[in-house]
């Protein structure tokens, strides 16, 4: 394949070279099982411990609160189902309409099993009403699950305030922080978050490893049984290479997190401003201020997202869209619809998500190519007079 300009980092990221180096020995020489009694296997255990500490360092929590899983989706499923199982007398779940399907589909499955589900709506900027949240949390509420930052728009929820509200009412609070970890600083010791999901491949570790943070004292049932691993909460022989990789990625993220808010944000803003100026009838989706530094979601009116993406693809530019056609469903993204973005704009929404590996040249290349793509598609659109 020719040159690739990768602006789809909310979908997945490149494995950092340092991360790849760190995990390699565990796919070759150090293949032992950390549970073994012999030195050859047992020596692996200390690398897992080190990884746990690195991740705890990035999150600002204790390493005993880190449980390794296989992905963010597993962490979300485990958090929601595990809490409901541990609190059988409580029957209510609260979430938002803009969650990732890993959370939304799990909550809706619980609803079919008889749980009461409240899905909070959002305003045009993608923000929930905190008063509405407060009035919904009651004694029957087992868990409130609200994402840290939205994958499509990058909108950040005021999670510390939300967690405090939920805590005051005595319910368990879970946050899907898959898009936030590594992009914005977190400090779990100073927050009221009980459970937090993260995914390795969103922060330059490989696919197949995730974490569920469980605050000490949180009541949650084991989610995979049949072994003592991860304190018997998530049994199964550890994905050692993946865990070591995630630990290294967490160390890098902690070191580079300033760059996210300087270098990456600057590139994002350069791209966003140029596209909004150079392409007429384009608008930004979401909350411009409370937003991840790497994400921009722009709607180009009168044209359709898949056609834009395939045109970008001709130049090796990778992005994503909330249009119906790209998902294989017939309706545009549930996030765009929840925010009340008009159909004209929702079908033509394009998300660019950057990382610290992107360059100014790449941004300028997209700025150069985009107006031509938009104009060509508008020339053949029946909505442009």
């Amino acid at each position, binding site marked *: 394949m020719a040159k690739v300009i990768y602006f789809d980092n909310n979908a997945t990221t490149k494995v950092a070279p340092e991360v790849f180096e760190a995990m390699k020995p565990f796919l070759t020489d150090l293949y032992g099982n950390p549970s073994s009694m012999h030195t050859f296997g047992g020596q692996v255990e200390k690398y897992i411990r080190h990884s746990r500490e690195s991740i705890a360092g990035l999150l600002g929590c204790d390493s005993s609160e880190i449980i390794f899983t296989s992905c963010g989706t597993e962490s979300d499923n485990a958090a929601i189902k595990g809490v409901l199982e541990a609190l059988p007398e409580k*029957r209510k779940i609260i979430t938002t309409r803009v969650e990732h399907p890993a959370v939304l589909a799990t909550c809706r499955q619980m609803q079919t*099993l*008889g*749980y*009461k589900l409240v899905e909070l709506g959002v305003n045009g900027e993608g923000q929930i009403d905190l008063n509405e949240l407060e009035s919904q949390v009651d004694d029957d509420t087992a868990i409130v699950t609200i994402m840290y930052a939205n994958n499509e728009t990058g909108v950040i929820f005021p999670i510390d305030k939300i967690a405090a509200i939920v805590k005051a009412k005595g319910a368990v609070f879970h946050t899907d922080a898959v898009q936030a970890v590594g992009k914005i600083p977190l400090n779990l010791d100073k927050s009221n978050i009980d459970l937090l999901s993260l995914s390795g491949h969103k922060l330059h570790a490989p696919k197949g490893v995730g974490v569920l943070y469980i605050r000490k004292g949180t009541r949650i049932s084991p989610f995979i049984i049949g072994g003592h691993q991860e304190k018997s909460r998530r049994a199964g022989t550890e994905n050692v290479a993946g865990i070591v990789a995630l630990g290294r990625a967490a160390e890098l993220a902690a070191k580079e997190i300033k760059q996210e808010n300087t270098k990456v944000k600057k590139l994002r803003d350069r791209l966003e401003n140029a596209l909004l100026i150079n392409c007429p009838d384009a608008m930004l989706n979401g909350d411009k201020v409370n937003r991840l530094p790497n994400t921009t979601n722009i709607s180009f009116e*009168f*044209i*359709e*997202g*898949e*056609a834009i993406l*395939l*045109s970008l693809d*001709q130049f090796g530019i990778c992005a994503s869209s909330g*249009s*119906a*056609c*790209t998902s*294989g*469903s*017939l*309706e*545009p993204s549930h996030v765009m619809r929840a925010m009340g973005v008009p*159909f*004209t704009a929702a*079908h033509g929404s394009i998300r660019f998500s950057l990382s610290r590996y992107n360059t100014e040249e790449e941004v300028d290349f997209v700025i150069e190519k985009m107006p031509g793509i938009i104009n060509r598609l508008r*020339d*053949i*659109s*029946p*909505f442009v007079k």
Partner: protein
Amino acid sequence: MWDYNKKVMEYFLHPVNAGEIENPDGVGEEGSLACGDMLKLTFKLGKDGRIADVKFKTFGCASAIASASIMTEMVKGLTIEEAEKITNKDIVDKLGGLPEQKMHCSVMGMEALQAAIANYRGGKARAGKITEGKIVCTCFGITDKEIEKVIIENDLDSVEQATNYCKAGGGCGSCRGEIQQIIEKVRGKKASKEEIAAKPKKLTNLQKIQLIQRTISEQIRPLLKADGGDIDLIDVDGSKVIVAFRGMCSQCPTAEFTLKDVVEARLREFVSSDIIVEEQSE
């Protein structure tokens, strides 16, 4: 990612006949913004009565643009009668195939062509879509006639296929049962084999009672328990099922609705379509 063939990509990236003819002899529009795609077709006849020029404008994905463009090539030079015979299948064949979920793009092409021909014949300023029949899919405004047409022309036998071809049933999904009925009607009751296999054979009385009990405990009780209620099975008499509400349900003013909308509906779905549920009389 969609697996578009080279021809589809070629017609998407370099479409022929894009644009709009001034003072056309026929105009056809199909689709809408809400649907996510729209096609406007205009044509002009030559002195010999054949289509001399035809242009399209499309809002939509790559396959929508490619379908419209290749169709304009196909109809150029044809008489109205010849053009009228073009089906969505002809468009797909000419493109060398489309992904299954994108079939509706070719249907939109055919429908816009037919609307343009109807407009030419009717001499109206502008023709909309076929309005015959009754709306089945309210999300996308698809009528029973349109659904029947795609089923017949493409030999479809499942609701999922019907959705891929004309979008009906792809929104809220509440019309899927009705689409299934249309398929059954069109195909002379020979609908999708799985659908038939899924329906249980005639049950013995014992099997029926066991199935009713299982449905109540797995499907109905958890719902009622969420609101502090419960339900007991009292008796089964032929297709009549007698139940009693317990807990909150016994004093609930909406228990009657629960009886029909929840209990009866679930038992009809999982046990037998002729079930009637009654509450035990005191």
